[in-house]
């Protein structure tokens, strides 16, 4: 999916995902590792503020990936 989106829309796509090897397999160029399968951008163990901060950090990493030139598959 990530590959097709990048090709069709012709803009950078970052894949926020839990299983990095799968992301590599499906051909993502910019990969942002996430927390866990049922809650990739969260952690129910944390309190609300902590969790929001965690999510912010993952999203900011995703944005960094979008604004960074890459020449090959890169895990951020």
């Amino acid at each position, binding site marked *: *999916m990530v590959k097709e989106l990048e*090709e069709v829309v012709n803009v950078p796509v970052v894949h926020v995902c839990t299983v990095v090897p799968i992301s590599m397999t499906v051909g993502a160029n910019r990969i942002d590792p996430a927390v866990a399968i049922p809650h990739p951008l969260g952690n129910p163990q944390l309190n609300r503020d902590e969790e929001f901060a965690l*999510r912010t950090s993952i999203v900011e990493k995703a*944005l960094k990936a*979008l*604004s960074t030139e890459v020449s090959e598959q890169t895990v951020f």
Partner: protein
Amino acid sequence: MANIRVVHYLNQFFGQIGGEDKADITPFSKDGPIGPGTALEKAMGDDMPIVGTVICGDTYFNENLDTATEEVIALVASFKPDLLIAGPAFNAGRYGMACGAVCAAVQEKLKIPVVTGMYEENPGADMYKKNVYIVKTGNSAAQMRTAVPALARLATRLAKGEVIGSPAEEGYLARGIRKNVFHEQRGSARAVEMLLKKIKGEPFTTEYPMPVFDRVSPRPAIKDLSKAKIALVTSGGIVPKGNPDRIESSSASKFGRYDISGINDLTEETFETAHGGYDPVYANKDADRVLPVDVMRKLEREGKIGKLHDVYYATVGNGTSVANAKKYANAIGQELKQENVDGIILTST
């Protein structure tokens, strides 16, 4: 034979307008050759005059791709050309992208042969070598002296409708088109020859370079996030409460398109997951854990991103993400393309 009318495309620098400070100059044209065009014209011979030169700033072109392309095509067309030459762009990335884009567009719209030249590693080469002939050049303008004859030679052959030989013979970047040829030796003899070279550690050339994987080349980064429109897509099946589109929990046969304008946070009351492949408790409790709308809104308010796209797309990746990708990523992609988004965050569980 009548003259072949050639139009030449240049950026602000080679068009002798100025350097980076003039890179946002809008397209315009001049009669006759300019700069490298003079040498090109000489190399092509008397029957191929450069009747006009179209010049555009690299920054302007790349930041206004669609409008700039149209403007350039119109200017090119006004000369009623039989052939377009762009560049050479050497290793200048934005110039290379512009040369590639102009060539591809002119070839498609004006249906005339086009040719450009650049360094192999120019991002424009990777992007456009499949569509247009790109003559292989050195990596800087210092190599103009070798680039011009090569470009002129292929341009002449293209203009005269001659059969174009292999990349090695003609000096262009291979376009990934497989063509049948008759070799001197039969295949088995070629194989023995190749094996002996390989065993001895001598250089050899495979007849079929293996594609490692059908990859998409990475698209250039977003230059300025604070002006960028970012779209969210998820394969984690986040849908408005009640799953209005009835997205299946696995093997989904459709994707959802949901408006989030005005929504700052996904809550237990408003959103849930339709995904059947993971424990849905956490995402149902707070769907931001899969689709980070709350954080995106915060960053939008803070001006760190220009805008969160009003619509997000959801699919279910329950063992189906790879499969469905081929089927509907295209559809989602087409829509997002229309909306001129600058980047996409795809989240998966």
